[in-house]
């Protein structure tokens, strides 16, 4: 034991254990930290999505739901709430009335997320949790202008009167589908009997909401799954997919990818450091053996010192991982209603296991083979060094990397893509290196002596250099790839929500109002987007088969939809089947693919529509996919120009209005009381805030991966430094000048850096294309502007590290270097 500790101390001082130790610490830190952080992000994602449900899970039905479900949930300690929605007329005085969408909620609503209210229609927002008081209603802002209402007025729903208490500006569980739904009226569930509007047979949606601790919710969900009947729909996070969720999901994938790349880098650093460690220990093992140490003993000694290094790295790595998580989560602090625990054991165990695997697969093989060192080395130090590179090790290491990445990212395509890129680098690296080194030697013969020395050295170290080259190229490639992905993700988010993107929609603009509304907007210098004509129609039959007026849940039924026409494919839409308008064929329609599926519509089907009272028959000539998160007007059905112009039509558009100018809406609606304004600025600013936070986290992790990359570069340069030191010392002993030696070392490493840079850029572009196309589903564009700086930085960095590493040879007497090694 004493010997073990002395050996560790010796190794620590010698520096070779240092890199190994740091690499292990890094792998623990990265894996524990990033997986902990990713888990927390997932929790954030869940909370975010749950807010869009106003609960953790919900059940929906068109019939009243069993009461005992609420009681059962309550007895398990879950919070519950009930929601009823239906359409009803809202009356004000004798003449004003409007068709509204009434939502009656119990006192605990919403269980997740918050309501936003304001005292005046577009006044200052305040957050609120809980239902309106009995006898009070909250009205959507546009109703105030529509019905000439103010807070304090009395309105009636059915047979009951209510006092208008506030403007309802947003509710958590109202995402998407905002066009065409009547303006919202929210009231307390307790007031429903008094209204008398909910009768048997009324079209009412019933929802029960549940929320609570994760395990309890999961268990309760399982029991509910067995109890729900055909018409009842269980809603969970998976069914609510807001834009925020998508962004968080991509960020999470990026983090996992970054984490797995960091693990690969740390693994390579561990492998390189262990190799060097083993090389430097050959004399030591030879001496121990000459002094009578048997192989098992030598093996035990190294196993114990690795185990100690692992344990030490665990302790330090865990502390650092904790700090990393705290720092990363600090950016998200306001997002969490319940901040996630930083002491969840799982990430720490995952980190420990990963580091253990690194130790076993990357560090142990070269050390285990130390026992094969011949004790004869004590007599003959010129014996060739025991070669630790065995193909089997490489295969096992590659397999381990694949498993680690897969386990870590839980994403097979991503793993395979990165592995393919690694393989490409290794293969092309070996070939290119071989060719370049041979070519370089020929060219070098004609060059000056510094160059000749450098190129001769490059060639002499053939195999070692190739390995170094591949390692450098892989490190640079992974860093480059990550940098590219980060930039692309941030750009994508930025372009999804550019500053000044439209955050209000205005609907129901009558053709005769168009000019006045445009004028008003222009006068206020409000930037508006294109106008879409809009009309409502009813889908009556598909392929001659009448749709029922009302069907069982999920089955196609007659329904209304918003129609528009457009000469071009609308922004953000993509054709997935069929073709865009064919000349001369006017009676055509392009249908959104999800809508088509729900309605049982296929390409080529003939659809019978009813617009007002006039029937119209059209053929489905294309199916489109569209981005529901784009905050742009989206339509299920788009018609060719020239078909619908004769029907009564209104227009819609969107515009950007900064928060401080919200009052303009009052003016707009006073002047044009029939307009409908939909606000999406609240959700957009929430999304923007989330993206900013996620971006910070991404940057933080990228920084950490950079550290891992630097460690690999250092370990790579160190890998050959002993031999180089010895050779340089010899050259110096032979009279080579300081300038000469440093010059040749610099040229050698600069050349290595440039070659590695070329390979890295090629492989990174290929992998970037693959990841963008297959994993992140984002557009790919080549990045030639990045190539020259990468090459320059790679050359300077590796050249600098090389010179730095060999600087000792020119400051210490050659004899000292020769004797020491």
């Amino acid at each position, binding site marked *: 034991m004493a010997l073990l500790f002395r050996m560790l101390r010796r190794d620590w001082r010698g520096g070779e254990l240092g890199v190994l130790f740091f690499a292990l610490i890094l792998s623990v830190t990265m894996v524990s930290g990033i997986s902990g952080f990713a888990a927390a992000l997932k929790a954030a994602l869940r909370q975010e999505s749950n807010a869009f449900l106003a609960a953790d899970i919900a059940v929906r039905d068109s019939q009243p739901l069993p009461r005992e479900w609420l009681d059962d949930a309550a007895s398990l300690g879950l919070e519950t709430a009930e929601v009823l929605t239906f359409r009803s007329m809202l009356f004000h005085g004798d003449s004003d009335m409007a068709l509204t969408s009434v939502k009656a909620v119990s006192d605990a609503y919403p269980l997740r997320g918050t309501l936003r209210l304001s005292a005046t229609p577009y006044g200052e927002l305040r957050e609120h949790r809980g239902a309106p008081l009995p006898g009070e209603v909250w009205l959507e802002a546009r109703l105030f202008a529509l019905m000439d209402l103010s807070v304090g007025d009395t309105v009636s729903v059915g047979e009951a009167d209510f006092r208008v208490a506030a403007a309802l500006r947003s509710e958590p569980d109202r995402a998407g589908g905002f066009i065409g739904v009547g303006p919202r009226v929210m009231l307390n569930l307790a007031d429903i009997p008094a209204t008398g509007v909910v009768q048997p047979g009324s079209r009412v949606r019933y929802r029960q909401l549940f929320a609570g601790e994760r395990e309890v919710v999961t268990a309760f969900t399982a029991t509910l799954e067995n109890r729900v009947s055909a018409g009842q729909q269980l809603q969970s996070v998976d069914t609510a997919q807001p834009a925020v969720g998508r962004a968080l999901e991509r960020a999470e994938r990026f983090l996992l990818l970054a984490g797995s790349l960091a693990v690969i880098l740390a693994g390579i650093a561990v492998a390189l450091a262990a190799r060097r460690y083993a090389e430097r220990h050959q004399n030591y093992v030879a001496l121990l053996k000459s002094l009578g140490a048997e192989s098992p003993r030598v093996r035990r000694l190294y196993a114990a010192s690795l185990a100690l290094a692992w344990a030490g790295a665990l302790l330090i790595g865990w502390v650092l991982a904790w700090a990393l998580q705290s720092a990363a989560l600090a950016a998200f602090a306001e997002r969490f209603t319940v901040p996630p625990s930083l002491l969840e054991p799982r990430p720490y165990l995952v980190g420990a296991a990963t580091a253990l695997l690194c130790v076993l697969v990357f560090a142990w093989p070269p050390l285990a083979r130390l026992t094969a060192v011949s004790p004869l080395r004590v007599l*003959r130090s010129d014996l060739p060094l025991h070669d630790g590179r065995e193909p089997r090790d490489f295969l096992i290491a590659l397999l381990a990397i694949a498993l680690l990445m897969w386990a870590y990212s839980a994403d097979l395509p991503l793993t395979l893509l990165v592995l393919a890129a690694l393989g490409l680098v290794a293969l092309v690296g070996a070939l290119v290196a071989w060719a370049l080194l041979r070519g370089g030697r020929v060219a070098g013969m004609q060059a000056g002596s510094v160059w000749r020395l450098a190129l001769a050295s490059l060639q002499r170290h053939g195999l070692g250099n190739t390995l170094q080259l591949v390692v450098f190229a892989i490190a640079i490639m992974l860093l480059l790839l990550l940098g590219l992905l980060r930039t692309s993700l941030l750009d994508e988010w930025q372009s999804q929500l550019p500053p000044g993107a439209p955050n209000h929609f205005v609907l129901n603009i009558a053709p005769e109002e168009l000019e006045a509304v445009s004028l008003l907007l222009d006068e206020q210098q409000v930037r508006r987007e294109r106008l879409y004509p809009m009309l409502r129609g009813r889908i009556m039959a598909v392929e001659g088969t009448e749709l029922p007026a009302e069907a069982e849940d999920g089955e196609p039924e007659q329904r209304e939809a918003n129609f528009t026409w457009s000469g071009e494919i609308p922004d953000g839409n993509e054709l997935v089947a069929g073709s865009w308008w064919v000349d001369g064929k006017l009676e055509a329609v392009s249908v959104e693919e999800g809508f088509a599926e729900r309605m049982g519509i296929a390409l080529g089907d003939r659809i019978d529509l009813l617009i007002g009272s006039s029937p119209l028959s059209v053929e489905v000539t294309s199916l489109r996919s569209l981005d529901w998160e784009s905050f742009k007007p989206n339509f299920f059905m788009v018609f060719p120009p020239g078909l619908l112009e004769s029907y009564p039509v209104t227009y819609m558009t969107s515009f950007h209005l900064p928060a401080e100018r919200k009052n303009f809406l009052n003016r707009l609606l006073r002047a044009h009381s029939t307009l409908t304004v939909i606000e999406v600025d609240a959700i957009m600013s929430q999304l923007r805030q989330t993206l900013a936070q996620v971006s910070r986290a991404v940057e933080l992790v990228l920084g950490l991966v950079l550290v891992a990359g630097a460690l690999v570069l250092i370990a790579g340069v160190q890998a050959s430094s002993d031999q180089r030191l010895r050779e340089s010392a010899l050259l110096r002993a032979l009279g080579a000048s300081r300038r000469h030696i440093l010059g040749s070392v610099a040229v050698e490493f600069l050349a290595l850096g440039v070659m590695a840079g070329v390979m890295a850029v090629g492989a990174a572009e290929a992998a970037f294309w693959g990841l963008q196309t297959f994993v992140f589903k984002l557009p790919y564009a080549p990045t030639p502007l990045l190539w020259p700086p990468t090459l320059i930085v790679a050359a300077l960095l590796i050249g600098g590290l090389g010179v730095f590493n060999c600087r000792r040879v020119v400051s210490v007497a050659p004899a000292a270097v020769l004797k020491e090694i």
Partner: protein
Amino acid sequence: MITATNLGKRVAMASGELAILKGIQLEIKSGETAAIIGASGSGKSTLLGLLAGLDTPTEGDVTIDGTSLGDLDEDGRAALRGREVGFVFQAFQLLPALTALENVMLPLELKGDDRAGPRAAEFLERVGLADRQDHYPRQLSGGEQQRVAIARAFAGSPRILFADEPTGNLDRATGTRIADLLFDLNREEGTTLVLVTHDLSLASRCARRFEMDSGTLREAAAVEA
């Protein structure tokens, strides 16, 4: 007692096999001192390696106190070395990160000796380095480093001591003092000493002298010690 029977060593070269040692016959009794002399490349270090079990012969066998090294595997030979054999090398082979005391303790610790510290200190005192115990090799002169190596070799109480050019890296005066120390300790401990050198004056201090020449060995006429 060390015996070598028909010992040979061949290595594969690009141009074919090269016989480094051929048909070596040797017998050194317990307590004897023997020198193997010869020019550079004559194969004397190879022979030392084979005698000490650091390397394996291609023909013949070595026995140490009746144990055939050929019957032992690498670990068996290591165990034998740990029990019976000590080394002094030309390049000292001290571990740079261990102090003088720790270097001497190394073989004792490998044997599991509980009193490694005091024993090592005693031997350092016997080589005259009691006050340099905590110095690192780089803080010691060449002669002092070799004295530490000698202390390390004797601390394990070996029955046989192999010395490979023990004065080869030292100046003449220091070399003489190191040789004095080596032979004094050898006498006091009653160890068998096998010495490889090309220094004839050092060789002349051994009871028996063998001469290596192109891979063959012959005993020079015995001299009175």
